[in-house]
């Protein structure tokens, strides 16, 4: 068995196992453990990207995904400050069974389609040097700023919308809130902390 294939199997097993650990108890019981399992899964995935000589993507996967996105997750879990009685054992219910059944059905369909489709897929030597520039910063950067200029600019709008939206939704209180609410918020929640500044970044 070629070394690369062996490494791929190890990494793939790592991805699948850590994702399973994220979803299933005992780790999947506590969100923070799930988040850590997911970070591990992202690291394995970054390994696969590196194996496919997508080095830049592998780095970004770790820096942005495992770094930024998952840190955001753990940060929010920390903010929620869940007590043990707020964490419940996942139960097997009708929804669980229906959901799993549906998922397996989709999976079966996917695999059969893939099996049929990749029959004719040609083999490409990953080391033949014709794709030497593949995944390099130069190549990706050039494409990003020429052919994909419009989507690139649109992504900036998307990120702005997401940032502003997240602030609007998650801030404890917005300024100039002097009107008594008809619908009283539950419990400790929206106690007015007026030192907060206005939401528009």
């Amino acid at each position, binding site marked *: 068995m*070629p070394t*690369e294939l062996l490494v*791929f199997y190890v990494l793939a097993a790592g*991805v*699948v196992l850590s*994702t*399973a650990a*994220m*979803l299933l108890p005992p780790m*999947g019981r506590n*969100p923070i453990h*799930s*988040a850590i399992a*997911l970070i591990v899964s992202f690291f394995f995935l970054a390994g*696969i990207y590196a194996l496919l*000589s*997508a080095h830049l*993507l592998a780095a970004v*996967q770790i820096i942005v*995904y495992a770094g930024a*996105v998952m840190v*955001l*997750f753990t940060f*929010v*879990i920390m*903010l*929620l400050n869940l007590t043990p009685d*707020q964490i*419940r054992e*996942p139960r097997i219910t009708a*929804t*669980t069974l229906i*959901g*799993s059944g*549906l*998922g397996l059905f989709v*999976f079966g369909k996917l695999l059969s389609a*893939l*099996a049929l489709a*990749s029959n004719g897929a040609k*083999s*490409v030597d*990953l*080391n033949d040097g014709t*794709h030497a520039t*593949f*995944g390099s910063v130069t*190549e990706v950067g050039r*494409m990003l700023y020429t052919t994909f200029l419009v*989507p690139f600019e649109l*992504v900036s709008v*998307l990120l702005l*919308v*997401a940032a502003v*939206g997240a*602030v609007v*939704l*998650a801030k404890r209180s917005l300024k100039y809130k002097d009107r008594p609410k008809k619908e009283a*918020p539950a419990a*400790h929640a929206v106690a007015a902390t007026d030192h907060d500044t206005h939401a528009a970044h």
Partner: protein
Amino acid sequence: MTAIPLGHLLGLAAILFTMGLVGVLTRRNLLLILMSIEVMLNAVNLTFVAFSRYNGWTEGHVLAFFLIAIAAAEAAVGLALVLSVFRLKNATYVDELRLLKR
């Protein structure tokens, strides 16, 4: 020497996508649901990279970068929503929410 067949990569992506889908459908914890959505997006990313690697197309690579940005935006908005749900209901489980009981 062909190291890894394309089918293997696509199969791994399909497994990941299914795990994410099953996670969204079965888990009741909002945070777990958001993480499952991230898993689905990662599976798609792997599919893009596999196709682009095996054909020497750079587009798939660029698309993978876009996808990471989109996933980050989704995570930000999703977590903000989880926070504001938690503020009002002190709950992170979907069955404690009236509307989300499916």
